[in-house]
């Protein structure tokens, strides 16, 4: 069969290139595994890049409020694909009960403690130089401005006003001690691309994405802050068809984004993924 360079092939080739650059450049490298569809694609791309192997640890930040199906799926895949799974959790905050579901703090503060701080703690503990994160430019305005290799300073902060130039696939891979790099191999994908690729490659995803009783999850997070949407899409092709016609934002079901005009932007600047 004659090769034709389809859009998905181009996306895949670019992501593989980025993953191989990251693997070569950073000795202490991990992937952040959110257990969502994008993470599934990223794990798949790791296996593409490294010929069936997942040669780096995968970190899951467990807020303890994740939907139970997600944890079951995570553990199954970790076993089947031989993944070195590392689970991070902000035990102190959970023990004190200072969470949004307990009514003690806002959604944004809760995200900041249970996700951002937990991630920072594990990066410091393991001394990771770089973390691979599956964000995409089409998800949301601030993510649209990201780089493939995006530095975070000692305080975990993202200086979006002074980002390194990125051209001709030459990335910033040198940095001062104490800082780390976020690597974003899916930056150029769209939500539909992710599903098209899941379809083409038969990549497993959590069942929550598929419609049950007229509802499905479009974006997965913590149970108290993530709501399903009305949908009849029960298969991957049905999801693709649905997304082609929707005009609703992907993260519209994530309540923490809606608290203030710039809520998500502030979360990201302070080190959220």
């Amino acid at each position: 069969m004659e090769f034709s360079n389809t859009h998905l092939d181009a996306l895949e080739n670019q992501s593989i290139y980025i993953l191989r650059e990251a693997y070569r450049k950073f000795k202490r490298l991990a992937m952040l595994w959110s257990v969502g569809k994008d993470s599934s694609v990223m794990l798949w791309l790791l296996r593409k890049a490294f010929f069936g192997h997942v040669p780096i640890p995968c970190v899951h930040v467990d807020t303890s409020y994740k939907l139970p199906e997600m944890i079951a799926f995570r553990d199954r895949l970790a076993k089947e694909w031989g993944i070195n799974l590392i689970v991070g959790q902000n035990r102190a905050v959970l023990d004190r009960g200072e969470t949004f579901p307990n009514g003690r703090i806002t959604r944004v503060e809760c995200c900041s403690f249970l996700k951002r701080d937990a991630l920072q703690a594990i990066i410091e503990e393991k001394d990771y130089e770089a973390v691979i994160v599956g964000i995409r430019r089409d998800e949301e305005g601030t993510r649209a401005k990201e780089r493939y290799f995006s530095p975070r300073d000692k305080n975990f902060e993202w200086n979006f006003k002074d980002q390194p130039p990125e051209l001709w696939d030459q990335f910033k891979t040198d940095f001062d001690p104490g800082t780390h790099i976020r690597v974003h191999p899916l930056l150029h994908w769209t939500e539909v691309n992710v599903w098209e690729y899941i379809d083409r490659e038969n990549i497993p995803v959590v069942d929550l994405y598929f419609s049950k009783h007229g509802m499905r999850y479009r974006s997965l997070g913590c149970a108290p802050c993530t709501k399903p949407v009305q949908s009849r899409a029960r298969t991957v092709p049905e999801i693709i068809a649905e997304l082609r016609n929707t005009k609703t934002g992907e993260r519209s079901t994530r309540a923490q984004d809606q608290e203030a005009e710039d809520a998500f932007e502030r979360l990201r600047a302070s080190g959220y993924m």
Partner: protein
Amino acid sequence: MSTPEAKSNPGAHALRIVIVGHVDHGKSTLVGRLLHDTGSLPDGKFEQIQVVCRRRGMPFEWAFLLDALQAERDQNITIDVSQIWFRSATRSYVIIDAPGHKEFLKNMVTGAADADAALLLIAANEGVQEQSKRHAYLLSMLGVSQVIVLINKMDLVDYSESVYLRIEADYREFLAKLGIQPLRFIPIAARDGMNLTEPLNDVAKWYSGPTLLRALDELTPPDPEAEGPLRFAVQDVYRFDERRIVAGRIESGTIRVGDDIVFSPNNKTSSVASIERWNAPVRDSASAGESIGIMLTEQIFVERGHIGSLDTQTPIETNRFRARIFWMGTRPLSTGRRYTVKLLTQEVECQLVSVDRVIDATSLDTVSGLRLSVARNEVAEVTIQSRSSLVMDNHDKVAASGRFVIVDDQNVAGGGIIFGGHYVNRGRVRSTNIFWSEGTIDHQTRVERNGHRGMVVWLTGLPGSGKSTLARALETNLFNRHMQAYVLDGDNIRHGLNSNLGFSAEDRVENIRRVAEVAKLMADSGLIVITSFISPYRLDRARAREVILSADVEFIEAYVAAPLHVCEQRDPKKLYKRARAGEIKNFTGIDDPYEVPENPEITIHTDRESVKECLERLLDFLIPRLQLDVAEYEI
């Protein structure tokens, strides 16, 4: 696996468009409006911005749709590159909204470097401005060839055809100098959505071209360079299991199982046993753009940074090259400082040898001749030397391996494209497997004692062009400056070292080869060697260059130019006369060709200037290169 038919939009390549132009000429407004008019905005987004604008007591601002960051809303300037998807009836697009503010060059470059096409925006009421030109210049450097010019804010000039035509003529003339042929000029009024998706009709009856959206749909997606020379950039070598896989990307051309691949710079050859992919259909070839792995039949040494090619089309390998660069660093690019050049997967420490000219991107004039540094936001032609060999191509031959970035203290501070590099067919170069003894007195030690670098100044030109005169004058001048200089010419080479050689084509090649080898040794010992030979063939001069550069010695090709009739008139040795009379055969210029140098380091016109003037010109060029701060650079 699903069949291709099951996918709703297989093979659709989203066209990446960068939008550039002078500050306030309406880039973000255009994007906002385009998203709205193509129905590509998420529900509620338009209303959300309406609320924000009302809350701030201002009219609806289209640019807010993109300027999602708080900081930008306050400054009303697009700080960084936004990427937004939209879809026409026929295909999808990614728009990169690049900033127009001068300080934000690096963000614009980030946006434009991987665009398939560019929209250049000019406000009709202001006309062509500084950044309209600067951005166009950068686009030409970044290799964006598909350009549409939008003349915006036509409402502010009452849709005047004469204003439109004047701007078009102005800009067309400027773009032509850059080698950019715009696909179209289109009048629009972005704020009002005029001529974006709907035609202008009544307001500008004089315009009969397409709307912006139709013009976009006419663009063709870029072809991957599958037909070009093979360049396989090695990223890594994996041994996760029993297989040893050389992983990398095909930057140009096509690789096939069974191909003999030369890996430069060390030029070991092995053939492709298999092409490796995971969970993909087996194919025995891979083309430009593909990230693959290969297994080799022989276990030769290959590592990251090596570039694989076919032995019929090998790349340039050199540690000295010329390039057109743009500089974004806070600190100027200057001689005497160390940088890292990143070219494909190669990373090599390098130094700026000279700034050959600084270019005013808005007029394309030379701002300054020889200089020692390039400031932020400047573009210039420079000569760069690297500590070890770099594998590259001229940018106009293979774009991917003809461009590089310069890293200054961890940060990508500049980018450039390579020109004027010399190709040598590696398959025809004699192998040099002679053991090279390294004494304790090294090149650097000699350079330090002499107070100048070793160098080969290779004069080439027709008989009677003035090579010998110039060579002797140069030698004397350098000698009087306490520099070690020595002329190699027919008188001291032909009668001794090369006395067994005649004037047949074969002997001429051998003559030049020996001269190059001798010049290399002498220059390595610290001398400035001035060679004065007709050396009429490009290939021979290219080989000489390679021989000499291989010893980390500077090679300056100086073309001594004078028209044939002038040389024939001078005829110092009466050789032309004899050749015309048929007494001498194969005489260069008469019945044997002289191949004019394509990219000499310097050209001296001896028919236009006196010997003294020619000498001064040559010295102006050579002295800064000879006196380079050698202590900074350990070879």
